[in-house]
């Protein structure tokens, strides 16, 4: 008998545009994924996605304005829905983000930055970049659980024995 599906919980976090907040945030969202039954691989990829989107929002979306980054995450029906908003949205910022995703430059040793969204795109099922009603930049990601992303029975037992 299948157990009834739990109501999805949306986690919403407002954080100052400061890189120091990213490690605990990304680890928290990855831990939520783990508790929701996603595999270690899925959780690691989630950690990277959160990191890259929030880093991007802080470095490029909040350059001129001391503002918050807003992240929301929901795990539902085998999918993670993630949304990151910054408040420095301009048409130029949006164009830059789209260029980074859809026209990435080839790998090079000369660039220290600018690859984060390419990684996010490769690890996600869907990636959408918008300007919100308030002029803020919004990045939405959906990541669908692959068959190998389900927590295996052995992994589940090991995890349960940890708690």
């Amino acid at each position, binding site marked *: 008998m299948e157990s009834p599906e739990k109501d999805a919980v949306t986690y919403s976090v407002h954080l100052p545009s400061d890189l120091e907040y990213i490690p605990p945030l990304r680890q928290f969202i990855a831990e939520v994924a783990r508790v929701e039954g996603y595999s270690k691989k899925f959780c690691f990829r989630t950690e990277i996605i959160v990191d890259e989107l929030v*880093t991007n929002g802080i470095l490029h979306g909040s350059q001129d304005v001391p503002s918050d980054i807003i992240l929301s995450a929901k795990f539902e029906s085998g999918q993670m829905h993630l949304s990151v908003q910054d408040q420095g949205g301009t048409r130029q910022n949006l164009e830059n983000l789209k260029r980074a995703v859809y026209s990435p430059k080839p790998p090079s040793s000369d660039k220290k930055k600018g690859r984060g969204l390419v*990684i996010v795109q490769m690890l996600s099922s869907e990636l959408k970049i918008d300007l919100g009603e308030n002029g803020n930049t919004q990045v939405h990601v959906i990541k669908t659980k692959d068959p190998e992303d389900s927590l295996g029975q052995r992994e589940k037992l090991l995890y349960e024995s940890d708690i």
Partner: protein
Amino acid sequence: MDTQIELQISELENVSHGKLIKFMGDLDATNVESTLDQVTKLIKEGFVQIVADFRNLRYVNSTGLGILLHFSKTAKEKNGCFKIANVNDNVYEIIEIIGANTLLDIYDSVEEAIASLAPRR
């Protein structure tokens, strides 16, 4: 508060201008600057044959990868190299996504990486 990253640096026996660097922890935007400073200092001191042991590097993001590519380029410009060993699957996936596996010298073990270096004359 930075994410924990620790670099343990030691001599490479029988290798001129060689150093072994063990990366331990997470390499991300909060600690790239300190990592950059430490490794750049070594390269400036003439240690240009470097093997980086990633056995205990749990995590790297795109910013961290950017400085690894920078180390490789800088060492090569000085007729040296920056070789990486013991990369875990998660970190390798990120390296591969941005195509950095074609730019970095990656080995299965520290021993293999050291064996590929020019011996001390």
